[in-house]
C-alpha cells in the first residue's frame, strides 16, 4: 500500500485540447485509465477518491509539452506497457511522452513542483524585432523590481506584486534555428505551486512593459515546456528525472 506503485507520466497538451480546463483534463485521464484497464487505488476514509493527480493547472488556452500525471495503481505494471496502453486511448493533442515508476520519491510529485518553464513565442514585426526583444530581456534581468497590479478574485481588490520575486530566470533563444521564420522565443522559468505562484499571463503583463510602447499589443504564444522541483542543493530538477 502507500506509495509502492506510483507512476509518473509526462504528456503534452497541444492543439484544440488547450481549450479544455484542468478539471476536464483530470476527467479525461480518469476515463482514459478506465478504458486502458489501468486500475487506480482509492484513498481511505469516508469519501474515497481515486489516487491520481494532474500536476499544476495550466491556464485555459495555453499549450504545453511538459505536463504531468501521477497515479497509484493496485497492481505493479510495466512502464512501457502502461505508456502505450494509455497513449492508445488519448485524443489528438495529448501525447504520452514518458512513464517512470517512482520508487524513491515518497512525496506526491505534483506537490513537489515549484518551477515551470514557459516558452513565449513572439511574432516579429516592424515594431518588435530581435533587437527589441533582446533589450527587453536584458533590461528585465537588470531591474531590481517589476511591479504589476493583480486583481484578487476573492476580495475584488487590486494588489501590487513584484514579479521579479517569482522569476527564476529569463533568457532569449540563442539561435534563430529554434524558431520558425519571423518568430523568436524567450524562456521564462517562474515559480509554480502552492508555496509561491505566478502565472505566465501575469509575467507577460510585467515583461511587456519593457518593450517599446507600440509593441505592447504584439502577438505571442505561451507554451509550458517543463516543470521542475528544487533539490536539497536548490537546483532545478525536471520532474521527469524523479525516480
Amino acid at each position, binding site marked *: 500500500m502507500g506509495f509502492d506503485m506510483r507512476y509518473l507520466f509526462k504528456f503534452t497538451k497541444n492543439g484544440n485540447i488547450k481549450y479544455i480546463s484542468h478539471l476536464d483534463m483530470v476527467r479525461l485521464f480518469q476515463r482514459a*485509465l478506465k478504458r486502458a484497464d489501468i486500475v487506480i487505488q482509492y484513498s481511505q476514509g469516508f469519501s474515497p477518491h481515486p489516487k491520481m493527480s494532474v500536476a499544476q493547472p495550466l491556464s485555459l488556452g495555453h499549450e504545453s509539452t511538459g505536463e504531468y500525471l501521477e497515479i497509484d495503481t493496485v497492481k505493479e505494471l510495466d512502464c512501457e506497457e502502461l505508456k502505450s496502453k494509455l497513449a492508445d486511448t488519448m485524443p489528438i493533442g495529448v501525447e504520452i511522452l514518458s512513464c517512470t515508476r517512482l520508487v524513491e520519491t515518497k512525496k506526491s510529485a505534483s506537490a513537489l513542483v515549484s518551477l515551470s518553464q514557459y516558452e513565449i513565442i513572439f511574432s516579429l514585426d516592424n515594431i518588435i524585432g530581435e533587437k527589441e526583444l533582446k533589450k527587453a530581456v536584458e533590461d528585465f534581468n537588470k531591474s531590481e523590481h517589476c511591479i504589476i497590479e493583480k486583481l484578487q478574485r476573492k476580495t475584488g481588490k487590486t494588489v501590487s506584486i513584484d514579479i521579479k520575486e517569482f522569476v527564476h530566470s529569463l533568457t532569449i533563444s540563442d539561435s534563430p534555428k529554434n524558431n520558425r521564420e519571423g518568430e523568436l522565443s524567450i524562456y521564462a522559468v517562474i515559480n509554480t505551486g502552492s508555496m509561491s505562484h505566478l502565472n505566465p499571463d501575469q509575467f507577460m503583463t510585467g515583461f511587456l512593459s519593457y518593450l517599446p510602447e507600440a509593441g505592447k499589443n504584439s502577438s505571442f504564444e505561451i507554451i509550458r515546456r517543463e516543470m521542475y522541483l528544487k533539490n536539497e542543493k536548490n537546483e532545478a530538477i525536471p520532474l521527469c528525472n524523479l525516480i
Partner: protein
Amino acid sequence: MSELWNKIQNRLLQVEKPARYIGGELHSVVKNPQEQRVRFAFAFPDTYEIGMSNLGLQIIYKVLNDLEGVYCERTFAPGPDFELFMREDNIPLFTVETKTSIKEMDMIGFTVQYELSASNIVNMLDLGGLKVRASERSEEDPFVIAGGPCTYNPEPLADIMDFFFIGESEEALPELMEKLIKWKEAKLPKIEFLKEISEMDGIYVPSFYDVTYKEDGTIKEIKKTYDKAADRVVKRVVNNLDEAPFPDEMIVSFINTVHDRALLEIFRGCTRGCRFCQAGMIYRPVRERKKDTLLKMAENQLAATGYEEISLLSLSTGDHSEIEELVVDMMKLCKASDVSLSLPSLRLDSFSFKIMNEIQGYKKSGLTFAPEAGTQRLRNIINKSITDDDIFSAAEQAFELGWNKIKLYFMIGLPGETEEDLDGIVEITDKIVQLYKDVNGGRTGRLNISVSASDYVPKPHTPFQWYPQNTEAVYRKKHMYLRDKFRGNRNVSFHYHVSETSFLEAVFARGDRRLCDVLIEAVKLGCKFDGWTEHFDFEKWTLAFKNTNIDPSFYASRERSYDELLPWEIIDCGVTKEFLVLENERAHSGLITEDCRNDCKDCGINNKFICG
C-alpha cells in the same frame, strides 16, 4: 474553412466554455469532406452540454457515419456570449467536426425534444445565413428538416422545415440518404426529392398540404396539394429493437454534460396507459432489447468510453420482462468494473428497493417517487396506477433502509382536479414525514423531502388532448395555495415553475401553422433559450403575439370538441382517435384502464404495427 477557424479561435478565450466549439472528442468522426457524396449536420437546438446528453444524437450520428459517402457532423446553439461575437465577426453557424458553415451542408436535421427549442431553431438558421421560411430558401440551400418527439405536432414549424421525420429513424435514414445521393447526382430540383420521399412512411412534407380555417379559428380542412402524398403520415417504427443499430462508441465530451454516463436503452414504448403521458402513446408498441444483448452493449460501451456510471433508459424500467435478471447481472458487471448503476423510472416495489439499497450502498443519494396526483380519485382519472398504500409502504421501506432524501413529483391542473386533490399533495407529504418519525424515533433532523408540482400541459395524441390548460392566473393561485400549506415545514421544500413557460409550452404543443409568424417575430424581438429561466422573456413573447395578431390562449386554454379538426391529426401515431375518446370518457367516470401488456385494450397500434 481554416480562415473561419482562425476567426473562431480569436474569440474562444473570451467566451464561456470554449470547448463547446472545438470538436475532436473521443469517438467523434473525422472524414474527408471532399470524398463525401452527402454532408449532413445534426443540429441540436440548445447548448453543447445539453445536446451531448441526447441519446438520439449518438444513435443518428452512428447510423449516418456508418454509411459510405455520408458525413454527419454536429452543430449546437452557440452560447449567447459567443453568438454576439459571431454576429460581430461574421462567423456563421458551423459544425464542430470540420468548422464548416452549415450553409454548405446538403441537409440540416434538427431534433425537437422540447417545444420551446423553436426559437433556438430559428436563431440557428439565421446564424447559418439561411432564410428561416422554407419557401424563401433557394435551390442551393441545404434541406432543413426536423425529427424528435415534438414533431408529432409539427405544425408550428411547418413553414420552416422542408420536411419532418416522424418516428424512429434508425432504419429509414440509410434509405433516405441513398435517395438524397441519387437526387443530388441527378441534379434535379428540390421538389423532385420531396415528392419522392413523401411516399416513404414517416415523412411529412408540409408544403404538400394546404390548411384552411373556419371563422371561429379552428381548422376547416387539411388538403393535399400533391396527390401521392400520404393522407395521414404514419410514424416510422423499428420492429426489432434488439437488432437495431446502437452505438458502443458514443462520443465522449471533454466538458461536463448534463449526463456524463453510458446509456443503455432497454426498451421503447409503454403499456401503462397513463392518460396524461404523450410518450406512452407515441412510442407504442413496446419493443424490448434482450438481456444478453443489453449486457453485451453495456460491456462494449464501458470499454469504449471509460464512463464511471451507466444508466438504463426506458419509460418504465421495472416493466422490462427480464428486469430482475437484467439488474442482477448489470450489478455484477458494474461491481467488477467499478461503475455505478443508475435506474431512473423504477416502480416502487420491494424488488426495486432491494436493488436500490445495493446500488446506493451506505452512501445513499435521493429516491424519486412520482404519485403525480394527490388523491386516489384523481390518480384513477389520469390512470396512474399507484395507490396510497404503494406510496406509503415504499416510503416506509426507504426510511427503514436508511434513506433520508425523497423527491415527490406531482402535477397540478389535471382534468377533474379539485381543491381536495391539492390538499392531498400536502396530506401525502405530511404522512411521509410522520412515517419517517415513526421509523427514526421521532427525529426528523436529516429528513429532506422535495415536493415538485409541475403545471400540466395537455399534449397531442393523448386522451386529454382536448382539455383546456389551466390559465396562468389559476396556476399561480394553486402555487400560492400549496406554498402556503407547506410553509413552516422545515423538512419540506416545495418547487414549482414559472407558469408562463408552461403556458407557452402548451401553445406550441397544441398550435397550428399560424404560430410560425409569432415564432419569427419573437426571435426578431430577441427571444432565444426559452427553456432557460435566465433567458426566457415572456414580455417579448406577449409583444410577438400582439404584433402578429394571434391569441395564444386560443391554443392553450380553449377546450376542444371531439369533432374539431386538430392540427396534429395529419400525423398518425398508431393509436386511434376512438381509443383516445374512449379513454377520455373513462377518465370522466374515474375508470381505470389496466396495463395492456397481457390484456390488449385495442388502442389501434396493432393495426399498423406488430404489438404484443
